């Protein structure tokens, strides 16, 4: 049992931190968000750092790293509030393709690794909310391949992506979880329509409409793969949230030590001091559960799912408290667009609702609860 980072992990963290410090100022981030949230350029810079190759197998141009390295990177990107789809494009996509045919992996993994292709999961449907096993989009076998019809919403960086991994129903009822296939749909395929838009947290998403769009089969038994990839996404989100909170706390501490009211710094008022102690508590509980999620990501079911859900519940609670309190501690300046803190807050708010909110994951924890529990079991 050991929570030290290896020297390589520390170097990786430092490299990302250096890039953020030098290349990703608040002004740049703000400009990107104002211009609609397109981040393919930033994504390319992350690729130059090697980050898009992080978890792609080294046999296919990647670095073959594991969850801990992903966590280290995501936390740093969170600290810098980097609005690029690294988790979706570089951490989840390789896992989504992993059970697919060799030719698909040979074609796409190297492109994912060098960021020449951005591949993202397009799974959100109107009626499904946070359930992965409800899929109304339909896939039909046609000739040697498949065609897909349906609408997927809020696809991350959707109109910047080159291809999509699409869960589609192979014939059962919408909530029949045995017939869910995963398919790769290229952006350029006939029948694909995209409508992109900016998001509340300064990034970009799109509606993806598929009308008999040609697709390549990844697997006909896709639910477990989908869940595993989403769990990778949740662990990445948790790490990102920790970085966001950590920096937002630091920003707030700076402000409290600078801003004066009634002839004294905000930091001198005991009620606010205790509040910042509570914020620190929530940040560290979140960090603890981010570690936990990452370190259990390779565990067999049901332990992985339970750990991920527990982590998301903690991160959701922490993100809410830390975000709202840090804004409150700022006062008026905290709710303006020109000041950095509000953007950290908005990202935290959106993280709570990504891949299932706190109530959803509380339900997951509650439903799976066992007699014994604990991190060290």
């Amino acid at each position, binding site marked *: 049992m050991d929570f030290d980072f290896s020297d390589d992990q520390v170097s990786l963290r430092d490299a990302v931190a250096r890039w953020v410090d030098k290349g990703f100022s608040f002004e740049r981030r703000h400009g990107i968000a104002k211009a609609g949230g397109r981040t393919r350029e930033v994504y390319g810079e992350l690729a130059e750092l090697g980050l898009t190759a992080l978890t792609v197998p080294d046999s296919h141009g990647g670095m073959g790293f594991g969850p801990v390295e992903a966590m280290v990177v995501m936390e740093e990107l969170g600290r810098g509030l980097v609005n690029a789809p690294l988790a979706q494009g570089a951490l989840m996509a390789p896992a989504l393709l992993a059970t697919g045919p060799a030719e698909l992996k040979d074609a796409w993994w190297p492109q994912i690794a060098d960021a020449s292709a951005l591949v993202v999961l397009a799974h959100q449907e109107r*009626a499904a*909310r946070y359930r992965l096993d409800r899929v109304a989009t339909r896939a039909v076998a046609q000739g040697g391949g498949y065609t897909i019809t349906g609408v997927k919403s809020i696809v991350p960086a959707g109109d910047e992506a080159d291809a999509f991994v699409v869960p589609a129903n192979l014939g059962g009822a919408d909530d029949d979880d045995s017939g869910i296939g995963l398919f790769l749909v290229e952006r350029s395929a006939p029948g694909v329509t995209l409508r992109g*838009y900016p998001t509340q947290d300064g990034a970009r*998403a799109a509606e993806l409409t598929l009308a008999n769009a040609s697709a390549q089969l990844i697997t006909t038994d896709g639910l477990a793969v989908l869940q595993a990839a989403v769990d990778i996404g949740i662990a990445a989100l948790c790490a990102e949230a920790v970085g966001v909170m950590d920096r937002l706390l630091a920003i707030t501490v700076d402000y409290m030590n600078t801003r004066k009211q009634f002839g004294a710094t905000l930091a001198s008022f005991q009620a606010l001091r205790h509040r910042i102690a509570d914020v620190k508590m929530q940040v560290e509980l979140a960090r603890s559960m981010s570690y936990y999620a990452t370190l259990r990501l390779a565990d067999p079911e049901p332990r992985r799912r339970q750990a991920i859900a527990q982590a998301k519940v903690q991160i959701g609670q922490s993100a809410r408290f830390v975000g709202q309190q840090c804004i*409150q501690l700022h006062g008026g300046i905290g709710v303006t667009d020109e000041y950095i803190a509000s*953007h950290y807050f908005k990202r935290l*708010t959106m993280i709570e609702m990504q891949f299932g909110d706190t109530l959803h994951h509380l339900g997951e924890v509650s439903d799976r609860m066992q007699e014994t529990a604990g991190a060290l079991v």
Partner: protein
Amino acid sequence: MDLNLTPDELAFRHEVRDWVRANLPADLSHRVLNSLRLSRDDMQRWAKILGAKGWLGYAWPQQFGGPGWNAVQKHLFEEECALAGAPRIVPFGPVMVAPVIMAFGSPEQQKRFLPGIASGEVWWSQGYSEPGSGSDLASLKTRAERHGDKYIVNGQKTWTTLGQYGEWIFCLVRTSTEGKPQTGISFLLIDMKSPGVTVRPIIMLDGEHEVNEVFFDNVEVPAENLIGEENKGWTYAKHLLAHERTNIADVNRAKRELERLKRIAKAEGLWDDTRFRDQIALLEVDVVALEMLVLRVASAERSGKHSLDIAGLLKIRGSEVQQRYTELMMQAAGPFGVPFMLEAMEAGWQGDQALGGMWPGGAAHCAPLAGTFFNFRKTTIYGGSNEVQRNIVSQTVLGA
């Protein structure tokens, strides 16, 4: 002790209700009920309708043209307006500066300023906060120096809500640096068209232009625009704060928004989800408890029989409830609250053309929810932050 309305109160409520129904333009209530953007014209249109009826200054005494309602009647009026989806009365004129002019202004000032406020013709703004003076308002630095029959004003105000539309602004200005900070403050009315006044927008975290900075660069203000005595402004401002409280809990809007939350929850398939439904139920208890708190204050104010030490709680609790319903609405929208399209806040918005006239994910009611939640973080900050309010409440409770 009786929770039921008396026949007179019922009759009053129905009179108000009927009038509001007959006179509130449908396009305005549509915007309000769906959290869409209101233009200056939208807000002023309703103000003028109320003004023509004599109800814009609904809390004014009869001697100044008000209806002379008691606290319960005022509450019922506020409730009917809120439930019908009327725009909130922009308070700076009729609710904030008018009572000060009535209490401390000269007869000339009353004659000059009150009619334009009562009719809704003149748009007033508030000039209190400064960049260095938020919670510690008394530390304000904007100077007004007397030169003959004029004041020369220099300095900066901030967080001036809707100041981009302002024609007049009432300001707290420093006229003396002697003694305690509170004793050197004066209450000045300034024409915003005066040379040297500049308004700069502050964009809020939801992307909206709602507040402003107002700069004063050697602005000449006739001395006749001073309210009451020089250096007594702090006293007048405190009088105003006492009047500002009546509707501060905004519980009537909360009742309306609670219903909207339930509709959204139903549309999003959450009405039968025990976990989410319980959150609504908890909020419903909060709303009822807040309403009872407000009614107790109104009843005590009317009867004058006993004083209650709970008015200070209204702002704290009201703002918390407001934040909670916006949070639950946003959570109900979930992923469909994520898109950010400022154009969807316009009443005329016909849905996204590329999506066949829809909002991403499909339900147009999701469009304003995240933005409203973000915007409402202000409610625990403005009007005296909740931390300042707790200072005040604890002073009352501890007596020290």
